[in-house]
């Protein structure tokens, strides 16, 4: 029986497809897109066998199953390619495989006719393999390798249309920004490994919870890891790369920059949560970071005009929300929101892609009235929007409430702030929807040419819409009981800390009212006459509007930081090398001491003697220190 022992096949199949496509894609019919789709489908089917196996084994004593083999064994340095299948991984895998499959299918339509069609699917296959590896990795080193690999895929796909200057720059920005976090992760991994002597995650967690690692040491290591999570999940202040990443093709935004790769940071925190729980202050830190990101991004989303960027800021906002959940140790809620968010955010992006495909613009100002032309897209989009706004019966409602409940206990200020977040989500979601589909069409030429997308694009939309409608109900005990897992997803997935969904009227009421208020207010602003009322509203305080419109000037701040910081430092060193060492060190000394009556023109570029001088200075410094050390 194929079961959890076959978990290694989940990444292996797409990896095989990647290798095949890399070598022979140009000789295959349709550039080999069917190979990638077939591989992901196979993984998807296999996933259900693994899931079934997991369900039969669940119980109080079940932690997970580890499979794999030793990759490198070098003296005391063992490197395993090991896969650890447990409930957290399964939840994340569900999101990865479902969205990946849908995006593959969708891309056959969206990318149709692109000159690098085959290459696109090649990288997608690699991404699916790497992402599954990341999720299933049972040791931190393998996780890190997969972590970097998805980063490379992201780099390649953001810069997919590298002829466009902006795309290439965005790719570089994303790569470099996340690399900062990656270095932190690597240092954290090495620190933990140094103390525990193994990369195995379960052993490390055990060591952390049983007090084998000193608190200060553990704090430092976890802080470095947090840096990695923040970079990947685009938390403040690393968030700048994610909106720019929208330069990539829209299916990529849906898969990598909404549903899967960007939540890897959340996943890492969830994975390491037992260790984070040991240190009391870290939870608060994570919550604060998440809160800043969540609220800040939601505010910015209210003033963007690019359809993809609005959704990107919405993603940022939701990522911040999940960070808050992790900080409050609301594991169940956080992971559940990760799953539902993957569905509805991918749906939003794919819907937006469908719109862009039809009208070939991303400016919401040029859209409007599209509901008549694109009924399926509109229908699915509205479901996604309602889920994003967290209104009842849609999946976002359940997961959001689960988190709110987790946060509420003992963290009242955060709870109140999150209610404000729900309100803001309502505003920008409604605005996005209204501007895109309702009101008069503001660009008649584009409107006339608009058409519904082909079935291979609408089918994934419908599937994701159905999932968005239904996934939330899995939280309920009664639904779970009917499907064979009493207690709902909370109890099923997290056997050791069952948090079955209990409908709490206060929370639901407060959150729903907040969200509804935001939606209704915005509908009032944008109803009928288009954005005029909203414009008047913005004119009340143009400065504030400009601040929001310009994303709080964080990018400009960074650019200045890069200009004056990193490059300045290297300029300084190069300048030092050129002028101080070369000219001033030579010139200045000569002038200062005045021993030699050389004129300036002879003092240029005393290269070879300068080189020798540098060597002797090195010798003397070392010799003097060494001699004074022992005398």
């Amino acid at each position, binding site marked *: 029986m194929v079961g959890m022992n076959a978990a290694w096949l989940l990444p292996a199949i797409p990896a095989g497809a990647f290798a095949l496509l890399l070598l022979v894609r140009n000789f295959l019919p349709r550039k080999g897109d069917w190979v990638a789709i077939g591989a992901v489908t196979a993984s998807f089917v296999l996933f259900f066998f693994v899931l079934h196996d997991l369900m039969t084994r669940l119980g109080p004593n079940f932690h997970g199953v580890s499979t794999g083999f030793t*990759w*490198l*064994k*070098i*003296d005391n*340095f063992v490197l395993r390619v090991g896969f650890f299948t447990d409930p957290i991984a399964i939840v994340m895998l569900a999101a990865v495989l479902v969205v990946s499959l849908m995006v593959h299918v969708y891309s056959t339509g969206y990318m149709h006719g692109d000159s690098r069609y085959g290459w696109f699917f090649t990288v997608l296959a690699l991404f699916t393999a790497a992402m599954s590896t990341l999720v299933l990795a049972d040791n931190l080193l393998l996780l*890190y*390798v997969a972590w*970097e*690999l998805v980063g*490379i895929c992201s780099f390649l796909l953001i*810069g997919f249309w*590298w*002829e466009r*200057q902006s795309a*290439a*720059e965005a790719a*570089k920005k994303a*790569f*470099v920004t996340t*690399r*900062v976090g990656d*270095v932190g992760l*690597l*240092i954290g991994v*090495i*620190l933990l*490994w*140094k103390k525990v002597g193994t990369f195995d995650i379960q052993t490390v967690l055990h060591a952390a919870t049983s007090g084998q690692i000193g608190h200060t040491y553990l704090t430092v290591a976890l802080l470095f890891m947090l840096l990695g999570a923040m970079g990947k999940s685009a938390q403040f202040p690393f968030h700048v790369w994610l909106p720019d990443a929208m330069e990539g093709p829209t299916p990529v935004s849906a898969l990598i920059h909404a549903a899967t790769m960007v939540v890897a940071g959340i996943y890492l925190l969830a994975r390491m949560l037992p260790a984070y729980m040991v240190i009391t202050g870290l939870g608060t830190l994570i919550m604060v970071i998440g809160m800043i990101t969540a609220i800040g991004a939601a505010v910015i989303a209210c003033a963007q005009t690019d359809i993809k960027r609005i959704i990107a800021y919405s993603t940022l906002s939701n990522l911040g929300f999940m960070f808050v959940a992790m900080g409050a140790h609301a594991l169940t809620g956080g992971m559940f929101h990760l799953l539902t968010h993957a569905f509805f955010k991918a749906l939003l992006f794919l819907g937006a892609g469908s719109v862009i495909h039809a009208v070939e613009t991303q400016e919401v100002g040029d859209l409007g009235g599209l509901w008549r032309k694109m009924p399926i897209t509109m229908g699915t989009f509205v479901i996604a929007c309602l889920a994003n706004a967290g209104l009842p019966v849609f999946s976002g409602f359940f997961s959001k409430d689960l988190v709110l409940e987790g946060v509420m206990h003992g963290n009242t200020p955060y709870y109140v702030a999150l209610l404000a977040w729900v309100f803001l989500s309502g505003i920008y979601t409604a605005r996005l929807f209204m501007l895109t589909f309702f009101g008069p069409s503001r660009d008649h030429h584009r409107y006339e040419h608009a058409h519904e997308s082909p079935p291979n694009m609408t089918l994934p939309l419908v599937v994701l819409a159905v999932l968005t409608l239904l996934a939330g109900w899995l939280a309920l005990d009664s639904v779970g009981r009917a499907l064979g897992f009493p207690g709902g997803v909370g109890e099923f997935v997290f056997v050791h800390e069952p948090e079955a969904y209990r409908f709490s009227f206060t929370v639901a009421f407060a959150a729903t009212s907040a969200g509804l208020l935001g939606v209704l207010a915005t509908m009032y602003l944008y109803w009928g006459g288009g954005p005029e009322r909203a414009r008047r509203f913005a004119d009340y305080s143009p400065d504030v509007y400009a601040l929001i419109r310009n994303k709080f000037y964080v990018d400009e701040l960074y650019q200045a930081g890069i200009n004056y910081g*990193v*490059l300045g*430092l*290297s*300029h300084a*060193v*190069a300048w030092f*090398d050129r002028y101080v060492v070369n000219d001033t060190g030579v010139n200045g000394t000569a002038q200062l001491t005045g021993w030699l009556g050389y004129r300036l023109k002879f003092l240029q570029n005393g*290269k*070879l003697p*300068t*080189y*020798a001088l*540098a*060597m002797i*200075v*090195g*010798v003397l410094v*070392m*010799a003097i220190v*060494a*001699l004074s*050390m*022992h*005398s």
Partner: protein
Amino acid sequence: MNHYEVLAPELVLLGLAFALVTLELLFPQLRKDLVAYLTAASAIGVLVASAFFANRSDSFKDLIQLDNYTTFFRILFLGTAALLAIASAHLVRDKLSNAGEYYGLLLLGVIGATYMAAASELLTAYIALELLNFTLYVLVSFDRKDPRSGEAGLKYILLSAFASALLLFGISFIFGVTGTTSYAGIRHALEAGIGEYRGTLVVGLVLLLTGLGFKVAAVPFHMWTPDAYEGAPLPVTAYISIVAKAAGFALFLRLFSQAFMPVISDWRWMVALLAALTMVFGNLIALQQVNIKRLLAYSSISQVGYMLIAIAALSHDSATALLLHLGGYAITNLAAFIAIIAFYNATGGEEIRDFRGLAERHAGLAMTLTIALFSLAGMPLFAGFMTKFILFQAAAQHGLLWLSAFGVVTSMISLYYYLMVIRQMYVLKPRDGDGRLRVPLLTSAVLVVLALGIFFVGIWPTPLFRAAASATRLLF
């Protein structure tokens, strides 16, 4: 003790070098690229033959050791020389004269380099070092038409003679306090206690480190490197950056592990200091470069910083990691340089901005160079990540965690300047009139093999690691 067969590979190589020079003298009309292929064939022949020495342990009068360490480096040097001979074929034919001498010197340099790795006595090590140095002086100044070549040769020979004098003064002090020049003898003498001559000993060590630091290009003894790299003909630049550097480390590692382990606390901080300086300066100054050879010069300087970490954390683990890293570095740098040589042969450009739009002019060349640069930057799956990771973890395990952290952070900076080159190749359009490039078939084949090698080491380093581990086992 007199096992003459220990010397056999180098004797054969010497004979082949003479034969090549004579051949070219006797038949001046011979196609010059044919000489290159003969050189490569000779080197590969000796390489295969010397592989039979694996797991043998002999010595010649305790001067030249034959062990896996020697064999490891012998194969590394011969392989590099063979590939560089192939890569030189077109460039030497078109741009340089005296082809016979060129290839002869390439092989003689390998003899010097191998004896640097094999020597277990300071006099032998010194003279081997000088043999390599002399071949490099000549090779660097080989291009008589390019004034930069002569200038590079002048700077190199004068500074190298200066460094040699410092090194020798250090050796004389070591000899003075221990009464011997053999590694084992020095270790024996140092183990007996160094109470009253520590002062002379540490000054000797400082001078020794200076000489070796110059050879491997460690900051602040590195300043000849960018100039020599830029001035030398391209294949010679590659030769310096791989063979000379690896030979320097081979000598460094054997000497310090076999002779100076008893006084490790006296020199560890010096090496650590040099490593830190080298990583910082190499990476930061590289950001400002516009010439691809100078960029790779600073890149190789920063790589030296990482390698010095292994010496500072000297142990069996770190020595093995160093050899592994050297192996990966050799493959990566070969790929980068051979790609650049092919580019230079086709276009004559060696500025970074000349590479703009290379992806459209020759996709394979751009891809290989990108792979090599990613490997140098230490991206996972590429050789650079795996070898650097093992190196850093070995250092961290032996108490130099801060230095490893230094390495991780500075290698992040390095990504920026490698991306500059990649950006030129992929993001920018070719200039008007820049058409597709032609790359010879053999060069393409070599590049493909090297690119696969980078992935091989990056994904499955076990074979190379086993070789390295068995090479370093006898040192400790």
